[in-house]
């Protein structure tokens, strides 16, 4: 749903497609509506429009928050990439040093044996 353009509620127009007397039927219907329900319906429409506006605003806020979160996730994703690379490098150094220590120890042992 496009939250930028929430439509407003409107009163019904009571159209009639009957030829010739159609406009008269429409007029009678409108009159009856005006007499019996207009005030209550108008009140409900106002209420519903307000509710829709609140919901629309709330959705827009959520969308904006979601975009912020997405941007944050992209940053975190990039940080994770850098971190993963750093960890990989540290693991290589660790193995390299362990091998070096082992090589030196073996060399010392050979010297001592000699």
């Amino acid at each position, binding site marked *: 749903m496009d939250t930028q353009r929430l439509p407003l509620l409107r009163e019904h127009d009571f159209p009639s497609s009957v030829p010739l007397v159609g406009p008269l039927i429409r007029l009678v219907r409108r009159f009856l509506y005006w007499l019996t329900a207009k005030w209550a319906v108008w009140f409900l429409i106002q209420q519903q429009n307000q509710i829709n506006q609140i919901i629309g605003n709330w959705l827009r806020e959520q969308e904006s928050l979601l975009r912020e979160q997405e941007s944050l996730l*992209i940053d975190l*994703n990039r940080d994770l*990439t*850098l971190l*993963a690379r750093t960890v990989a*490098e540290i693991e290589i150094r660790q193995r390299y040093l362990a091998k070096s220590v082992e*090589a030196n120890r073996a060399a010392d042992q050979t010297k001592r044996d000699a």
Partner: protein
Amino acid sequence: MLVTDRLSIACISPLNPLRSGISDYTETLLPFLAEFFDLTLYSDCGVPANPLIAEQFPVYPVSDLYKHHLRHDLRLYQIGNSPHHQSAFEALRTLPGVIVLHEPFLHHGLYYSSPLHYRRELFYELGIPDWARLKYMEQALMNDDRQALMDIPMIGRIVDSSLGILVHSQAARRIVETRRAKSAFCRPRLPKIMVVAQPMSVPDSDEMPECRARFGLPQDALIFGMAGFIHPVKEPYLVLQAFAHLQADFPQAMFLFAGEILQETGDLLTFARDLGLGDKVIILGRVEPLERLHQAISACDVILNLRRATIGETSAIALRAMALGKPIIVRNIGWFGELPDETCVKIGPEDGVEELAAVMKALATSPEMRLRLGQEAQRYVERECDPRRVAHQYAEFLWDVYLSIGQSRV
């Protein structure tokens, strides 16, 4: 302080029976690489189809890499633009290593692995959640509009995270470096990049008459061929139009498609019939095994391997044809443009039917020219693409990366 042990390398790559050029590539290289390193293979191929690989190397699923990664000194990823690399793409996020980037363009591979992950990688590249751009890229993907997609090659994370990058051409190197220059993401060190040739053994070539007999092809015909996957990017329609121009002067000429014609390519046979070439064009479909493909290539006099747009890829088929001593026609674009002039015939990046027909005619007229080009091409492959030589270059690069990281100060 010297560490002279053999390095333990985790190789992450598709292997046969996964149908991928990279499966063949890795299987060619592994025995030679094993002379330098202790190799453990990680692949989602199940049991490798190549018994020599299954016997010589331990093979695990890629998911086991998360458990085993501390056993290895380095990880070596073979990455290309195909969903066969799905688990490797995932592993790369947390377990970076040295990457062999077969194409510096990963749109199809990422998208068809997971559209959700494609979105993640695209936003990683852009730095912002640009939904309009996502829709545009998806549309370009569906239309296979490579020019539009090349603007963002989707290699951002690889460039940012890898410990080293191997590519197969200067064109690919330029794409990687351009991406790196464009990146707004600051990072302390840039990965080493090296260009290595694509390994290609020179197979024992079968005699042309024998190969032609095997496929029921006439011995006296002049045969032009196109091999491998027949994709629109290889311009089969343009090639057929140019081939039609030869008919007046060379009525004995034929055209052989030795490869699977992809759905998006359309109906080549109907097109050939419309050009009046119905009985001159032969479509073999997918040619297996590799020895049979070699025979199909050997049956041809000239192999065409054009590209309308390149994504920085090399062509194993072009190298195979060269290894078999066949003259090839390519466009002067990307890796193809880097081939020495004496080893192939190049047409311009924008050349059309007339220009292509002219070089086809020149080759058709001169058996000496075909022989000379084929010999030079074979010598080039022997010299530059020898798997032992490539494995040696790999070894130098991997040791360089390993020592430069191991000996660096924290």
